[in-house]
């Protein structure tokens, strides 16, 4: 079939080739958009953060009694990940703080925070780093485990004011 631009041939209309001006305009508009689209997943992939779950997510019977398990996402070099956990509570006016042991589960990159604190209302502060990238989280823990809805995640270690606010946000009588 003979190709003739902008004409109807054989029952099909062939669109005319756009002019150079139109092409340039389109390039100007599409290039930033394409770069944004390409850059966005990269940016998301590089967002280093914590993810928490019930101990069942670890698929490891040794951590079944943990308060919760967590993993980090967004670190391209898993061996560079460093994590730590601290427990804090407020009994009356007295603030208590405990360094918590983080247990590595059988799944790479999945850790468990075992309940190592006295009864009462506690929050667990997670801090993590992956090279220069940092992440943090505040996880309230009640008698039945962690409280997902009240948990907060940051792209840096939680600030002291944010920790205070989380402790004060514990409802009277504690999380159920």
């Amino acid at each position, binding site marked *: 079939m003979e190709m003739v631009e902008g004409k109807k041939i054989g029952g099909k209309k062939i669109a005319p080739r756009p002019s150079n001006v139109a092409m340039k305009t389109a390039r100007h508009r599409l290039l930033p958009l394409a770069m944004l689209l390409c850059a966005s997943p990269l940016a998301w992939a590089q967002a280093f953060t914590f993810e928490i779950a*019930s101990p*069942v*997510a670890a698929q*490891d*019977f040794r951590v*079944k*009694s943990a308060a919760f398990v967590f993993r980090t996402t967004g670190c391209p070099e898993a061996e560079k990940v460093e994590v730590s956990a601290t427990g804090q509570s407020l009994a009356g006016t007295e603030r208590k703080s405990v360094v918590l042991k983080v247990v590595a589960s059988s799944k790479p990159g999945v850790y468990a925070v075992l309940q190592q604190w006295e009864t009462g209302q506690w929050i667990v502060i997670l801090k993590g780093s992956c090279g220069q990238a940092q992440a943090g989280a505040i996880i309230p823990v009640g008698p039945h485990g962690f409280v997902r809805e009240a948990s907060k995640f940051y792209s840096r270690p939680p600030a002291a004011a944010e920790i205070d606010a989380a402790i004060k946000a514990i409802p009277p009588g504690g999380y159920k």
Partner: protein
Amino acid sequence: MNIRDHLPLVQAPESVWNAIEAAIRQGKQDEKRKVPRRRVAWAAAAAIFILAGGVYWFGVRQAGWIETNGSARRTLRIADIGSVDMGPNTRLRIAADRADQHRLTLAHGAIYAKISAPPRLFFVDTKSGTAIDLGCEYAMNIGEDGSGVLHVTKGWVSFQWHGLESLVPAGALCRIRPAKGPGLPYFEDATQEFVRAVDQGALDSIIGSARVRDTLTLWHLLSRVAPGDRARVYDRIAVLTPVPAGISRGRVLALDPETLNRLKEELAWKW
């Protein structure tokens, strides 16, 4: 010198020979009588052996069953891997107690198992299927008709019946149905509407009322609904929580075991 060489030779009286012959005849008759006695003894031994075998067989079977009455409770140690608390009116039997397998048969009643061992080491058989420990603590009750409930408090339990499997994580429960095996598992904090829909097997209501945590139930539905409904279930999961990259919709709908397992492991991070 021997004194016997100096003694005179004397003929024995006739009466002595008669007495000796009579004694020999009597001895032969006694030997003939001993044969039936031996046979009787062997027969008696065989009878005792068979009887003992029968008593042992019935005795072991009966002794293997452990029962509690209406008010009693009892705790069984399961080697060094945990314990099983028996509730009142419970009847069970230890079917195997080996290093590689600890197996109970629960005829009826209620148990609470606390096991700390690698998966697939502790089993409880019931009329309606087998509970397989995957590193867990759970409560299970079974009626005499085989109906019951499995409620997991820590870890995971797999309940299997003729190829049908329910994987029940901590905080979830699963109904056990006679001649049908395990029902769909769901979390104990599910809404009444959702639980009703699950009990009735109402697919539209299950899909419509599911929350993020109810993807546990939806995941099980994938392999239980008709192929034509599978996409609806998967799409609802995908709406409730982002499906991680690398999990192919097509492979899920084709029920690829590896993909399904990966999907379940990812969904568990939202439960």
